[in-house]
């Protein structure tokens, strides 16, 4: 029973981590319909920016954290300005391949600077966050992952629903031309959504880094796991990202705990194929209506 509970909590917090990573993805997709295959690399970039500030420059953790958020915000902005902006109006495969090329570039760059080794952050999470209940032990990272996941998802849920920028973003996602004609600054919306996505990516990258250590390959592989999550939840839905993330997290940890660890890695993709066959637009996704 305690093994089950342990797995359950672990799965839940990994699920929230997935949800957070998926959130960054959904923000980009919602506003600009770009499928970002460089997601994992941007996550890794965020994790490494934090590593530089916290371990190499030895800044106090809160300062390093704020600087990382600013840096990753700027990174998202930069990516949009120099890579994605020339692609507005191009056909889908080119945009996707552009993000693939970007992924290769970032990965090469990070391997060049940091190498393929595993790094660790200094141990800064307070011990009081760890939970010990009978035989169930939950390390502080998992609690933090849960908390940050909840906070961020709530913030962005409200942001898209009520703030004017959020409404602009949704309008652009819905119909670019209509949004333009109503006076929405579409380019600014794109830039902002990439910047926010960069920030969220960095957040999930850092949590992942605390959990498993930071290595380029590991984190960028994690970025691909976002796809099963967002497909399950629906590509443009934030609640979908949360629920998809939790389901995938639980499914993965339970398979890892009870069946086999090798299957754990591939299970999300098997689920993915079935979802695509049965309910291609996910649980909460919009069903596109195509008019001739």
């Amino acid at each position: 029973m305690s093994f089950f509970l342990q797995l359950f909590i672990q799965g839940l917090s990994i699920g929230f981590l997935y949800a957070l990573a998926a959130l960054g993805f959904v923000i980009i997709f919602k506003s600009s319909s770009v499928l970002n295959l460089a997601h994992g690399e941007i996550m890794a970039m965020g994790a490494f920016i934090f590593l530089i500030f916290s371990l190499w420059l030895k800044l106090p953790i809160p300062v390093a954290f704020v600087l990382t958020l600013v840096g990753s915000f700027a990174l998202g902005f930069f990516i949009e300005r120099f890579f994605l902006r020339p692609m507005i109006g191009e056909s889908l495969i080119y945009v996707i391949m552009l993000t693939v090329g970007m992924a290769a570039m970032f990965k090469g760059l990070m391997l060049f600077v940091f190498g393929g080794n595993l790094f660790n952050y200094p141990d800064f999470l307070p011990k009081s966050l760890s939970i010990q209940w009978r035989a169930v032990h939950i390390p502080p990272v998992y609690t933090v992952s849960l908390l940050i996941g909840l906070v961020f998802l709530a913030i962005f849920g409200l942001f898209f629903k009520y703030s004017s920028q959020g409404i602009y973003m949704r309008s652009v996602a819905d119909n670019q031309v209509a949004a333009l004609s109503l006076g929405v600054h579409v380019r600014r919306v794109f830039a902002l959504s990439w910047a926010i996505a960069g920030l969220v990516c960095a957040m999930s990258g850092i949590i992942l880094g605390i959990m498993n250590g930071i290595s380029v390959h590991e984190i960028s592989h994690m970025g691909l796991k976002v796809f099963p999550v967002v497909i399950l939840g629906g590509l443009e839905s934030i609640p979908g990202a949360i629920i998809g993330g939790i389901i995938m997290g639980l499914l993965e940890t339970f398979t890892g705990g009870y069946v086999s660890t090798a299957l754990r890695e591939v299970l999300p993709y098997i689920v993915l194929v079935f979802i695509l066959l049965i309910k291609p637009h996910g649980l909460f996704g919009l069903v596109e209506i195509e008019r001739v």
Partner: protein
Amino acid sequence: MRKLKFHPCGNFKEDYEKDLTLFETDFGRTWMWIGIAALFLIIPVTFKAYWLYVLNHIGIAAIAAIGLNLLIGFTGQISLGHGAFFGVGAYGAAILATSLNLPFWLSVPCAGLITALVGMVFGIPSARLKHLYLLIATLAGQFIIQYLFVQWESLTRGAEGITLPPATLFGLRIKGDRPFFFLIFSCFVTLTWVAVNLVRTRYGRAFIAIRDNERAAAGMGIPLFRYKLLSFAISSFYAGFAGGLSAYYIGSITPEPFSLLLSIEFIAMIIIGGLGSIPGSVFGTLFIMLLNEGLGAITEFFMNLSAFSGVALTLAPLREFVFGLAIVLFIIFEPRGLAEVWRIVRSSFRLWPFSY
């Protein structure tokens, strides 16, 4: 003898026959024969063994790239699983050759057929899915197949890999780079010929119609699902055939090379070469493979200078960086790829000195 055809000064095509013709002028045909003659008579004699080795890999990759271009460039269905399909072909050939003792000439086409079946299975989602969703479905296919390569040990022998028997054809043992050069490039020329001609048949035109507008194609009476599956099958056949050839050429296979990176490399080849262009796929393959070679040579150069050997080690990941950069630059500045560059160069020669 009929008169030589020169370039007309406008588009004077009056019937379908003329529209379907492969070579507008006799120069093109002549150059093609000259090219083939050079490929088979001059290159194998003059090139060093190492360059033949590189060329063989280019030939194999070009076959797979042409297949992928038939799918992405002509039918408009995106696949991120071709690296795995290539692997299915390699494993198919290896397993057929070791456990069923099939001869070389049978096992490679059979491997292609097996891959075509696998490709069709992963093409089934294309019945309902488009664009993004299809891309993600094939990405899932890539991971699932890779998982099977490693885990289905009774069939694939897991990480240990399979060693193939040497290839024999008509009683001759094919070993070494030069004999393989003839073998690989005969396959390459044949399959290119098939692809070029396929595009102008009823099937090829249906593929193009599906790419341009699915609804309109359906309206004209093209059964979408059947043709999409057919396109997946043909494309995976090419990938599997190339995979089988590479398995025989290398001699032993392990699961590692058939990763997502290989899939991405194939897509990069056809994007850099030019989507929807058969010669483009060959140009793109040449570009990517020579880029890889060049970067490898630079790394090696620094390795040999003892003072810089540390630099060389850190340079290795820059290969990936340059590879990504090439894709990004091509997409931003010349999205129609090298085929378009080639067309521009050619037409500027043709129009000289009265260019527009």
